[in-house]
């Protein structure tokens, strides 16, 4: 029996999985790090009210976590460009968009200690399925 003829074991399956995983994981890492940075900085509207737009920009640009987040978002961006160049948008779009909703909710709960309650989990699942249908 030729196992490589099975879709799950073919090289293209693993290549597609690796590309989607790279986009989803780097995007999640970027968003969690950026959210952690913005939480540590505080409300930008309040900072802008006290120190002006320049003060708000300085507050963001002097936070090391922000640059870590931007780095992973840049990785996700170029991974997405690469993926879109090799895959149909009909597959890459729904897979990355819907998986990112779920991985972000999980990462927000465990890394940012957010209270992702039943209401947010329900919304995450509904939106995940909805985005899949919409983009497929």
């Amino acid at each position, binding site marked *: 029996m030729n196992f490589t003829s099975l879709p799950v074991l073919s090289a293209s399956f693993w290549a597609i999985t690796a590309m989607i995983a790279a986009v989803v994981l780097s995007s999640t890492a970027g*968003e*969690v790090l*950026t*959210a952690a940075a*913005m*939480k*540590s*900085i*505080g*409300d*930008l*509207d309040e*900072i802008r009210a006290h120190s002006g737009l320049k003060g708000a920009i300085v507050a*963001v640009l002097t936070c090391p976590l922000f640059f870590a987040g931007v780095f992973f978002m840049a990785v996700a961006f*170029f991974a*997405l*460009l*690469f993926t*879109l*160049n*090799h895959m149909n*948008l009909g597959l890459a*779009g729904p897979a990355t*968009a819907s998986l990112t*909703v779920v991985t*972000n*909710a999980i*990462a*927000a*709960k465990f890394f*940012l*200690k*957010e*209270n*992702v*309650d039943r*209401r*947010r989990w*329900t*919304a*995450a*699942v*509904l*939106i995940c*399925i*909805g*985005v*899949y*249908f*919409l*983009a*497929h």
Partner: protein
Amino acid sequence: MILILVSVCAPLGNACLAKGMTSLPELSLAHPFSLFAAVFTPWVALGIALLIGFFASYLTALSWADLSYVMLATAWGNVVVELLSHFCLHEQVSFQRWLGVALITLGVAFVAPGPSRTVQPALNDSAPLETLVEKGAPR
């Protein structure tokens, strides 16, 4: 207003990127710098401009709301793009896509009325957690 900007700029920016990248010849990992050249093509450049607008409003939203709230509450941007493509571009929308619109709208309706922040910001240590747990009507 901030959440509306986050919602609309991201899907429109991604759509521009997709249009720009699919019109280019296939790129290879052997020539990684060809990815940087792609940034200067018109559709990709427009997509990047929209994504910069998204990023500025996204950072502002994250400074006063949870990631899990912002991410879910702004998901209806996909719905806006779908409705625009149907009513402005007169594109055919399948039953499956209308089902997606309904599910996203339902999901956003679930999360939007809830608290926007459930963790204490680092710079406001003097404020008790109880006052912050239910803080923040959506802006």
